[in-house]
């Protein structure tokens, strides 16, 4: 089998390694428009913030391709798919025949048609990231246009580099796709404390040498670095030219197959069941399904559950599923503590978690993510889910006074408070004597203080009663 993959980003590179893991023999050729090895786009925000090194975003080493017999053609743009002869053609005229073709062309940053927009840097690729980091070295003020996930991460990252940052957003609150208004507002307040000024409900009318123009002429936000995070658009031109069905993206079925049975699409350029996913987890799930189908397996893709996790230092935010449902549509459990920047919301339907927002550090995030992912039944005690520390607290009675006689004090030697008391009553008046008689404290030794406490208490009681 000759497999050709167009696109060497997170979806394409994943597909290639998934196919190789299943079929060591297929001839695999992958075309990447960018000139370097595939990298992990998810971590670009960390690179921008300086919390990950550029060497940490590599997904596959050059050596991997050699070791696994995969031909990677980097910096080569595919300009045409010839479905009749089953071949792809690059800009420099190279023709690569395929038996199976996978489109993993991803998406491109949306650059809104604003006067002066060329002065701004979009935030999408590793190259963009390097330009922004370089510019941030000398910049005095930065503006980020777009308050979605990526814009928030970029703004936080630039603020972390010591730049005053203003984050501009068209909608009424930040990350409106993932967050309700209250959470969006509180996220803005949290960012505000970290040096990011938030302006929502604003429209950018021009980008000039002195900054970003909002609406009226006098409303200028000064900046010498403007970063665009205005969303992405699937790259579907090749597919459309080749006559494949394209709606918002290339339409695929549950096998990740397009309407041409020998062509598949995965990742951000694919539309499955009306949904185009913009996160890495679904792209990797799709890559696994496509790789399995291509190598003769029977996997099917049934859509993905979306968990959005903000990567921004000192801002803990997770959002999943249907966060916008209100009380008339679902059971909603909400805790809000604005002064501390803590907001927690559960959306429950039919006893299952269908959405959640967690803003502010919380141990609940792991549990809730897994409950959401698995769709299992929720416990009746919803508050216990939001506040894991509460559950089980108060059950411990380690004061010698309140401890029942049956309570085990020394686990290693199965000694109860009652046995220690009996031993004391039989004449043992200190730790050594109790230990010799009961063997308490002779195992791991961690009960020493507890045993000593009981003996002391018994001695005190004796004094009181005498």
């Amino acid at each position: 089998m000759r497999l050709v993959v167009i696109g060497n980003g997170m979806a394409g590179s994943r597909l290639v390694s998934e196919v190789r893991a299943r079929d060591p023999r297929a001839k695999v050729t992958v075309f990447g428009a960018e000139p370097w090895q595939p990298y992990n786009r998810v971590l670009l925000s960390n690179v921008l913030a300086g919390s990950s090194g550029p060497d940490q975003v590599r997904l596959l080493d050059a050596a991997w391709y050699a070791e696994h017999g995969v031909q990677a053609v980097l910096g080569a743009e595919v300009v045409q798919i010839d479905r009749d002869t089953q071949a792809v053609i690059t800009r420099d005229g190279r023709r690569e025949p395929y038996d199976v073709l996978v489109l993993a062309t991803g998406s491109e940053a949306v650059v809104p048609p604003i006067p002066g927009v060329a002065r701004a840097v979009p935030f999408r690729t590793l190259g963009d990231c390097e330009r922004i980091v370089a510019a941030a070295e000398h910049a005095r003020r930065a503006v980020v246009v777009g308050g979605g996930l990526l814009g928030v991460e970029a703004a936080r990252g630039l603020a972390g580099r010591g730049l005053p940052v203003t984050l501009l957003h068209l909608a009424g609150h930040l990350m409106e796709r993932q967050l309700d208004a209250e959470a969006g507002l509180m996220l803005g307040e949290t960012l505000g404390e970290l040096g990011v000024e938030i302006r929502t409900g604003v429209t950018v009318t021009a980008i000039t040498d002195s900054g970003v123009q909002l609406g009226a002429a006098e409303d200028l936000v000064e900046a010498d670095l403007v970063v665009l995070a205005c969303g992405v658009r699937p790259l579907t031109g090749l597919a459309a030219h080749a006559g494949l069905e394209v709606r918002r993206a290339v339409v695929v079925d549950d096998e990740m197959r397009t309407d041409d049975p020998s062509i598949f699409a995965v990742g951000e350029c694919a539309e499955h069941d009306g949904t185009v996913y913009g996160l890495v987890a679904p792209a990797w799930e799709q890559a696994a399904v496509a790789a399995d189908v291509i190598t003769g397996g029977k996997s099917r893709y049934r859509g993905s559950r979306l968990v959005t996790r903000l990567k921004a230092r000192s801002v803990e935010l997770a959002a999943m599923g249907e966060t916008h449902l209100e009380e008339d549509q679902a059971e909603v459990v909400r805790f809000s503590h604005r002064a501390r920047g803590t907001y927690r919301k559960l959306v429950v339907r039919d006893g299952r978690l269908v959405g959640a927002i967690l803003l502010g550090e919380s141990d609940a995030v792991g549990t809730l993510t897994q409950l959401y992912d698995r769709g299992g039944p929720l416990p009746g005690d919803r508050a216990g889910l939001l506040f894991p520390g509460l559950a089980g607290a108060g059950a411990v009675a380690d004061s010698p006074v309140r401890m029942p006689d049956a309570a085990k004090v020394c686990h290693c030697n199965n000694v109860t408070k009652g046995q220690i008391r009996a031993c004391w009553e039989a004449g043992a008046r200190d730790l050594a004597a109790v230990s010799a008689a009961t063997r308490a404290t002779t195992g791991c030794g961690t009960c020493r203080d507890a045993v000593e406490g009981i003996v002391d208490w018994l001695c005190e009681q004796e004094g009181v009663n005498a």
Partner: protein
Amino acid sequence: MKPPESTIEPVTSPPDGASVKTHCPYCALQCGMTVTARGGEVTIAPRTDIPANGHGGGALCQKGWTAGELLEPGARLTTPLLYGRRATWEKALDHVSRSLAGIRAAHGPDGVAVFGGGGLTNESAYHLGKLARVALGTSQIDYNGRFCMSSAAAAANKAFGLDRGLPFPLTDLAGADVVLLAGANIAETMPPLVRHLGVPRLIVVDPRLTPTAKLAALHLQPAPGTDLALALGLLHLLIAEGGVDAAYVAARTSGFDAVRTSVASWWPERVERITGVPVARMRSAVHMLKNTDNAYILTGRGAEQHAKGTDTVSAFVNLALALGLPGTPGSGYGCLTGQGNGQGGREHGQKADQLPGYRKIDDPAARAHVAAVWGVEPSALPGPGRSAQELLDALGTAEGPRALLLFGSNPVVSAPRSGTLADRLRRLDLLVVADVVLSETAALADVVLPAAQWAEQDGTMTNLEGRVLLRRRAFPPPGEVRTDLEIIQGIAAGLGHTWTASPPAVFDELRRASAGGIADYAGITYDRIAAETGVFWPCPAENHPGTPRPFLDRFATPDGRARFTPVEHRPPAEEPDDDYPVHLTTGRVLAQYQSGAQTRRVAALVEAAPEPFVELHPDLAAQLGIGAGDLVRVRSRRGSTEAVASITHTIRRDTVFMPFHWEGANRLTNPALDPASRMPEFKVCAVRLEKVA
């Protein structure tokens, strides 16, 4: 050079009332104890000269204190049994001999299998391997250590070129600032070890808030079967935060680049979703580990007993290497071996692919060396055989062995998917079990041979540190009970071989067989062990001091560098679904040991832990309408069992826990094997629960 014969005389028992210095019969800590028998009354006290438990007057857990109870006749076997009836040794061994002859004639040497145990002394393990390879000529030998630490062994061999559980003395841990315990519940499984961790701050990785996790400064509570992802995420964070010891990585390791690239795909938010461990906790763990000079990473069965256990251990080893811990004074990586002689048992030829001295059975030089010691042609030695689970699965099948000689193991209780094993054992032409008690497996045997216990025979044990220790005979075994070596001697005699049953003589031969191997015991003598309270292998000569810390200068790899191994997480072999919606994980409780064959016969231990139970979260219990103390049926795709509900907040909502000391829990477990270590996936499978009406 041939080491001189030991000066120790063959077995004599000390006079009545004398105290004998020996070691506990149970776990790999091998606590030192003195045993005193006066007028038939046995008393036990901890020794203070043995580092494992010698602190402050000496420590023992309840199992150790009560170990003398099983020595008394009553609970134990005292005569051979032939088809369930008492028989003389002569009759029993004659039956074994004649049956083996018939089976070998009909099915060839591989028609007979041997299965050993990690509780046997080095001498017994060594002679059992020789019995298989020389007297029986079978390749079909393995042992229950395969269920125990084989994953750590495989990972350590890969990384360091040598597998010694702890490549440093336990007492080194006292100098640690931070210790990460991955899948080890030492507060219950080896309590005196906790004393060595008195000072440092603990990080515990466990799906349960175990008594050990309760001692920790930081508890990471991943979903069962996801600790590999967690280890990858911790290394990702360490790299991101600049915590890699670059000078160490450059000077002492190889292969870091490939690992750095592979963990780039395991960013913490992704790992959080897989493991359920909050990113903030991962960050805390990394901060604790990187901001200290003295740190240790220790793994236990929790990391190992998976179909990906080897890779999980490799991931923790990679983390340790990136931190610059292994082979650095005051720091390190180690595996906490479980069984009493789990370390020595894997070194001297009980393993399907190994010859004494931790030699590989397919290495021509190793075969030549051991064959010369055994006085046979190298070509006469069989090749590698089936691993434990594959061997048990083959028994009673058309291609499998027709006979099994089983020493010191109880697989009917301890093997995964145990429900099918009893049937297959019944289908054998011959099942011979040598044990102390009539275990569940012994109860199925055609021939049961009563074996002596720890305090009744001399021999060496190699504890979790790789320290070779001496167990001494305090008194002779009762009735017609024979030592393991005498039993092996008897079986070998029936096959035409005249072998010694003297422990020092066998040990001297073991020393020669191991000489020049990885686990080199050539310089270790009973006298030295007694005088030095243990000797660390490798010890190639009698004037060699032994090797407490083998990696200080170089690792045992060809280039002396430790090797990073890139590994990838994958889900457990069986994940919860609508039919079986809950994870089951298994483990141990303090008052019982392994299959419980010994400890379930000790009254004080039965009182402390009387019956099998299933631990579940109150939320799960409420959903299922189960109350504390209710009898619950737990069912997996492989079988079902009943246990009493124990309801506790210390376990995840999606997970239940069962101890494996009673027949039942392992009816449920999954025999999916690790591709490298052949370790079954004891630590995670999918079950459903219902209240028994």
